[in-house]
Every structure is written in C-alpha cells, then in structure tokens.
C-alpha cells in the first residue's frame, strides 16, 4: 500500500489555530477562488455578443415585451472567467477516482466529444428530409444493432431520454402487451434494493408496487417471489447485477417463473457495465432492459445529465415499442418510422415518448466508444471493472464491514456498511473525510437494505496505482471513524465549502436570486 502520509499528519478543524485561519481580503485562497453570481457582477445593458445589424423596429402591439426582464449580461472575457472559476469548484472524473456506486463514473473519451461535434451530426435538424440525414439514421441503426447483439435481445427502442425514461418505456411496453392480451394486471413486484426510479416509474404508469423480499445474502428470494406470483402480477422489475453489487444467480429461474404466470421481466440495466460482453440478458429471459449510455458506454454525465436510455426488448414486447425509430431497408437506405409510416410498419406501437428521435448527441458518442473497444475490448471492460471492485472489497473488508463479502465475489461494485464505527460516527463522516483526501465519496445510504451503506464502484478505467492510493485513504478514514477522531465529524475542511445546511435550504427555500 502506498504510504501517503508517513508523518502521520492529520487535517485539523478551522478554529484550531494556524495558517488555515488566516483570512484573506477576497475570501479566495490561492487557487481556491470565490466567485460571485452573475446577478452580482453583470448588468442588463452588457452583452458579450456582437451583432452585424441593429434590430429593426417591431410592431406586435400589446404583445411587445416592454418591462425589464432582469437578465444580466457579461462580456465574453468575463463570461469565460466566471464559468472557468465555477468549474474549479467541482470534482470530476477528469480529476480523479469517482467511485459512485451504480453510477459508473468511467473515463469519458475525448474522441467521443470530437465526433459528436462534427457538423454532420451537431448541426442537423431532426425534421430534415430523410434523404438529407442518412448518416444520422445510420448511426442510430448501427448503435441499435450493437445494443441488440450485446444483450441478445430482439429489438431496441432508442428514443428514451435517460434511464428512468427508459424504464417508463419498458413498463409501457408491458402495459401495451397486457392490453393486447385483454388483461388488466395491476401489480409490479420490485425489490427493496431497487433504485428509487423503479417504484416511481411503476407508479407513474399506474401500477401498484409490491416489495420482493431479499435473502440474507442480498439476492432476490426466489421462493418468496414464486409464492407471490399470480394472475394479478404484470411483472417484476429487477436490477441485475443488483445494487448490492451481486449477480442474481437465479435470474433465469425468476424469468421462467414470471413467464409461467403470464408476467413480464423488466431488468434495470444501470449495472450492465459489469457484464457487457460476458452475459447476454436475452439469455436470462429478460423482456425489457434499459441501458444507460452515460454509464456503460461512457457518455459524459455533465453534472447531472443529459442521459440516454435505450431499451432493449424481447420478441414479445418489441411490437409495442415507441416511434420513431430508424429502420434499414434492403436497398441500404435508412428510414425513420414515424407517424406517417407507423400504421403500415409498426401498427402496435404504444406511441411517442419524446418530441424527436432520442439523444442523438449521446448516440454518436456511445457508438464511437463501442467501436473503439470492439467486441473484445468490451469484454475486457467488464472483466477489469469486476476485478477492480473485488480488489477494493478484499483490500478493505478487514477495516470496513462488508455484509455480503462472505458469500463470494462482487461484481462491479463493493458494498460496505457503517457497522463497527465509533459511537456517533456515520457513513456521512467517512464520505466527507474522503473529500479532504481528494476523492469524490462513494454512493452513501444506498441501497436501503444495508445500514449506512457505502457502495464503491471504481470502474475499469482506474489503474492499480490509483486503486492502491484510494484504498490507503479509505482505510485511514475508516480507522479514524472507528477511533472516534473528532476532526472527521466536521470534514471536509479543505473543500470550497464546509458541510452545507440542507435543512435550512429545505425549510426556507431560496430558489432564485432576488435583487
């Protein structure tokens, strides 16, 4: 293990004296720069854009906007500086390991960005005549073929805008299929360990949600599930690998049991990175699964989006998938199947989910990534992601409680609990301690089935040296939490901000700037 700090030096709280307490005139500290809001530095008379002409007089009568709007402008130089300074207050995958479990924060290749900005992709209107966008339709189709092959499924709906939107797409396919069978099944079974989007999606689509019990080793309880199945059950929503970082060994048996009573199997594919190229969900009886292109296929998270959530579908559900989609014809031409042609070519579609064709800018990036790795590279992706996670699990299980470690290897993420920390110390303290060590914390307090959960997903794009350093840091923090180091309770000390008052923010919401 790398000895990061052989002198044993420890961060101290502000107020403990020393240089950290020296106030500066600006509030900035060297490269840690404070930045006001645009409303404090801009003016409504300033613009950073030059125009070639004045606006001609307009006459739209009473509809003319005459009152001040209150939108401050900055010159270009000020604008570049404002946002550059803000950017430096963010942690990012470009800066270091970002071990957020279930979020798959992997390296975002810059070739993806370059390709997405080619004018033939970036400067194309969604409603251009189809003969002028054959390359764009080819990208959608080529990515679709890859996703189908990698998952062993029958079809794919490309238009969902993000993971939760993909879940909705899959669930609507199930609704449409049941409707076509003339059945009104109301119950979707969802494990407690599921992402919050699963039950929310089921409810948004009008289903009643019931829990699926878990076994002591963190997997779906097959016997209990079977006991609950019946003619009122529309299907199950299962995450595999699940949010405890474990592969659902009984997945095929679960699918068979659900199918036997006429239900469908939805799989949350958020964790597909662990198995891409190793297992095909289609071989496990899955009927629908969304794929987060911003996780497995490296499109950037962008500070919270945009995502992209194509949904692969089984033969049973594919006829109900949404329009529009890109189809390839025998003559090699591509055509968008939309309102004009759906009646003839895709008559059972449940309809449209979004205004246009999905997240094209993410499709170009994801396809670029997939072509870079190829079939062999993607398999290596899954293997390295799983190896890295197991390396972390085994390197830390002696200092952090790992509730499922005894049952075998994990997949792409390692799960720890807060058991054994000193009285008054929690997962939150460990997370904030990691910030001072220069890392983004892991996912905390999720999944809900583990007390004080800490879910660590390193991804395959981290080197052994980086993992060793992270293990060293987390080990050091875990020991401090076990020994009750009070400085940890007020971490972070070295971030742009100390712990923020979230209660105040929620109790007296200030959601916009007031002059």
């Amino acid at each position, binding site marked *: 293990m790398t000895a990061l700090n052989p002198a044993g030096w420890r961060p101290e709280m502000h107020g403990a004296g020393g240089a950290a307490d020296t106030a500066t005139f600006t*509030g900035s500290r060297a490269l840690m720069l404070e930045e006001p809001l645009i409303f404090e530095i801009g003016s409504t008379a300033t*613009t950073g854009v030059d*125009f070639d002409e004045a*606006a*001609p007089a307009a006459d739209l009568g009473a509809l*003319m*906007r005459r009152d001040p*709007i209150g939108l*401050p402008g*900055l010159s270009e130089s000020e604008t*570049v500086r404002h*946002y550059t300074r*803000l950017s430096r207050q*963010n*942690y990012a995958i470009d800066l270091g390991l970002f071990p957020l479990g279930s979020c798959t*924060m992997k*390296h975002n290749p810059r070739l993806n960005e370059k*390709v997405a*900005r*080619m004018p*033939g992709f*970036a*400067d*194309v*209107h*969604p*409603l251009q*005549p189809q003969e002028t*966008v*054959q*390359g764009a339709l080819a990208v959608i189709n080529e990515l679709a073929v890859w996703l189908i092959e990698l998952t062993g499924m029958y079809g794919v709906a490309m238009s969902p805008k993000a993971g939760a939107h993909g879940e909705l797409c899959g669930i609507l396919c199930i609704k449409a299929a049941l409707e076509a069978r003339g059945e009104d099944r109301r119950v979707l079974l969802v494990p407690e360990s599921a992402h*919050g989007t699963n039950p929310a999606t089921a409810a948004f689509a009008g289903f009643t949600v019931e829990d699926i019990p878990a076994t002591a080793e963190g997997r779906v309880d097959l016997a209990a599930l079977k006991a609950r199945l019946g003619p009122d059950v529309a299907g199950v929503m299962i995450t595999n690998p699940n949010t405890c970082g474990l592969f659902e060994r009984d997945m*095929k048996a679960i699918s068979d049991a659900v199918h036997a009573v006429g239900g469908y199997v939805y799989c949350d594919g958020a964790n597909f990175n662990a198995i891409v190229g190793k*297992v095909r969900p289609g071989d496990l009886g899955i009927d629908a699964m969304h794929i987060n292109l911003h996780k497995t296929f490296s499109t950037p*998270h962008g*500070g*919270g*989006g*945009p995502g992209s959530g194509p949904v692969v579908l089984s033969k049973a559900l594919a006829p109900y998938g949404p329009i529009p989609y890109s189809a390839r014809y025998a003559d090699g031409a591509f055509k968008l199947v939309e309102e*004009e042609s759906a009646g003839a070519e895709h008559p059972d579609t*449940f309809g449209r989910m979004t205004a246009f064709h999905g997240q094209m800018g993410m499709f170009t990036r994801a396809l*670029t990534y997939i*072509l*870079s790795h*190829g079939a*062999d*590279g993607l*398999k290596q992706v899954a*293997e390295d992601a799983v*190896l890295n996670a*197991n*390396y972390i699990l085994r390197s830390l299980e002696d200092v952090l409680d790992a509730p499922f470690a005894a049952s*075998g*290897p994990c997949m792409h993420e390692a799960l720890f609990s807060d058991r054994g920390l000193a009285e008054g110390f929690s997962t939150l303290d460990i997370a904030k301690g990691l910030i001072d060590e220069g890392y*983004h914390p892991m996912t905390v307090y999720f999944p809900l089935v583990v007390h004080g959960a800490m879910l660590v997903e390193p991804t395959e794009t981290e080197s052994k040296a980086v993992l060793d350093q992270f293990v060293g840091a987390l080990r050091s923090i875990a020991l401090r939490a076990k020994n009750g180091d009070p400085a940890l309770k007020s971490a972070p000390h070295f971030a742009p*901000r*100390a712990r923020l008052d979230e209660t105040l*923010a929620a109790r007296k919401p200030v*959601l*916009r700037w007031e002059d």
Partner: protein
Amino acid sequence: MRYLPLTPDDRSAMLAAVGAASIDDLFVDVPAEARLDGPITGLPNHASELAVERHMAALARQNRAAGDGPFFLGAGAYRHHVPASVDHLIQRGEFLTAYTPYQPEIAQGTLQMLFEFQTQVARLFGTDVANASMYDGSTACWEAIVMARRITKRGKALLSTGLHPHYRSVARTMAKYTGDQLVDGDPTLEAGTDWAVLAAAVDTDTSCVVVQYPDILGRIDDMSALAAACQAAGALLIAVVTEPVALGLIRSPGEMGADIVVGEGQAIGVGLQFGGPYVGLFACKTKYVRQMPGRLCGETVDANGKRGFVLTLSTREQHIRREKATSNICTNAGLCALAFSIHMTLLGEAGLRQLAGINHGRARVAAAELAQVPGVSVVNSGFFNEFTLRLPVDARATVHKLAEKGVLGGVSLGRLYPDNDALANGLVVAVTETATEEDIAAFAAALKEVLA
C-alpha cells in the same frame, strides 16, 4: 486498449490479491450456461482512434448540415448562432465529467450554475421559480399536465390545437396509461388561435389548459383572457414555449397569468443535434413549488456561514419518496442547462432583445418575399420568427424538391399531421439570424421554380 490502464501484470497481481485463480472465478455467480466463452462473434474488435474517427466522419458526411446552405426549419428546434465560448466552457472537464451534485461541498460549480440558470429561466418566463431542467420540452409538457392534476385533483386537460403535435403525442401516449382525459385536436390553417374556444370550454372538471406560444404555426396571441377564464374555473393555465428567443421581444406567459410555463431551451446554447440532447425548461408560481417534478437547487450556508448551494426539496423526488414521488425523473439535462445559461449570460438582456428583434425582422422580410411567389400566401397575421405558408400543392413533395435544389425550406404540416388532408398544403418556415438575405432570396427563387 487505450481506455484500460490495467496491465497484464496488474491483473495477475490483483487476481492473486483477491484469491482468484482466474477472472472466471469472479464471474462464478453467473450460471455457466449463460456465460459467453469469448467475445461475441460477428462484431468488430477494438480499433484505433484514427480508424474510428474515419468511420464516424464518413457517416457524418452522409448528412446535410444546416450550415451547408439555405436553411429554414423550426417546428420545435431552432438554429441560432452559438458563441464559440459556450462550447469551450461546457467542455471543461470539471463540468463535462462531473456527476449530479449530491456532494455539494465539491460541486458548487454545478450548483451555482443551476441557481443562476433557474433564475434566468424564471425571469425569462415571467414566473416565480424554475427547476434545474427536464429532459426536453415535450416531456416537460406532460409533467406539467400531471402536476396540474395533482394540484387540482381533476383529470381533464384541454390542449390547444396549436400545441406541437409531438408534444400532444407524448401526452396522448402517457394519458392512455394513466387515465388522464385529454381534449385535443388538429389546428386549422387560420390566422387566429383557438384560445377563445378554450376559454369558453374550461369548466370545473378541467385541471389545466395547455397552449403553445408561439404555437406550432408560429401564431402569437394574448393569453390574459384565457388565464382569467382558467382562474375562474379553478383550472391552471400551462404555457409551452418552444422558441425561448421569442421572449426577448414578446411578453412572457407568466406576465399574462400562466400558472406553469414549460419549454424547450434548445434554441439558446444547445444547437440542433438531430433532436437531442435538448433541455426542458420548467417554471411555475411559488405556491406550486412542492408539486414540481425534477431537481431544484437552493441557496443555503455552510458550517462556517459562507453562502453555498445544494439540491433541495428532494422529498418530492424518487430517490427519497420512491413510488410516492412527484415524478420518476432522475437525470436532468445539466450540461445543456449549462450551455443555455452561458449563452444567456453572454447575451444578457440587451443582447437577447437585439437577437429577438433581428430574428423577427428577418422573418418579416422572408414572409414578404415568399408571399410574392405565385400561389403562396402567409397564414399568420402575427408571428415572431416562424410562420406558416399555404402552398398551392402538397407541401411534403415540395420539401423534397426544395432539398434537391439545395434549400432546406421548412417543415411540411403533412409530415406532422399525416392523416389530415386539410393541412397538407401547409409549410412551417422558421427564419433566424443565421439566414442571410441571399438565403432568403434563394429560398424564394427555388420555391417559385418547384411550384411553377
């Protein structure tokens, strides 16, 4: 494989450290019969950056870019000049490769930007508050309808016939499964909106009335009377804005009494991108904020009393409330919101007003020139930067003939309403600051030729 840092020696050492004889030992929970032995066959293996770039560039060349010639498409996506610094700044790795700001101490950059974005959107729309963005305008529109149902506890929504047909389609898809009742229909090729009809139709079963401004045909109208009718009936007025640049010239929906204003922010900063990713805008009156979907950023202080920002009111959201959440939405459109916000900051109020004025002026010039083409007339009496032409023939064929002549000349209503013959001759034309006088002249000349 350039994105994988582990060396073969690392892998061996790490396998030994975890006590596995081979990588297969770590996949032991995957049933043997489901495990693939080697790479999936029939697919290419890894490729160099040069080879991939060459392949993708060849596909890009098979598209006609909007900048390649005269271009007049709108109908929900608008081509505006985006300053170079916008794209530079959103590629800062600290913005591009950050996650949702769940750890606010090290995400103040994203959070402050979102706070600024929310304020910009609220002011542009004339509302009290805005959220941190939605997927796009069409999904934001449906979420607004659902929000109105939650607030009013009524299930009937009246959709203006001027609402973008794709937005209407999304609502219809969802309503089919949620049981919401939608009253909707196709527009007619007339100068006026159907808002007076809606004002007369709103009743005590109505949850909301949804109007688009400017609407799918480019028409603009005063929604004050409709807002009053909604208020009298206890229904909410939802306004949809697909071209936010318009609000630099015409009054905001909030100012005219809309309760919820949603929109598509793509026109500012984001670019066309063949339909996505875009950025959904969502704003409303303060009293409804706890019924809003999506992420919200709020101001607070840190333990040292310094101002800071956090995601807040998350008890509305799925990760806390699960099946009782206001929406299943998780991801927003953070990076597109950033692009919107940077572009809006560069413009400022003065720049936005000038940009809007130039757009309107160009559109008026184009409408006048195109109306000179024999057999062609302008449907609208008023418009911002988009209007509808009535052609003497089916506009679908005309669009393809124009493309053959190098002109991307608008969106045919036949494509948007394939089953409605009364709309077949309609052509929706958008004219932004990117269209030059030469472009407009070329369009008019080409249209004259193909209609001759």
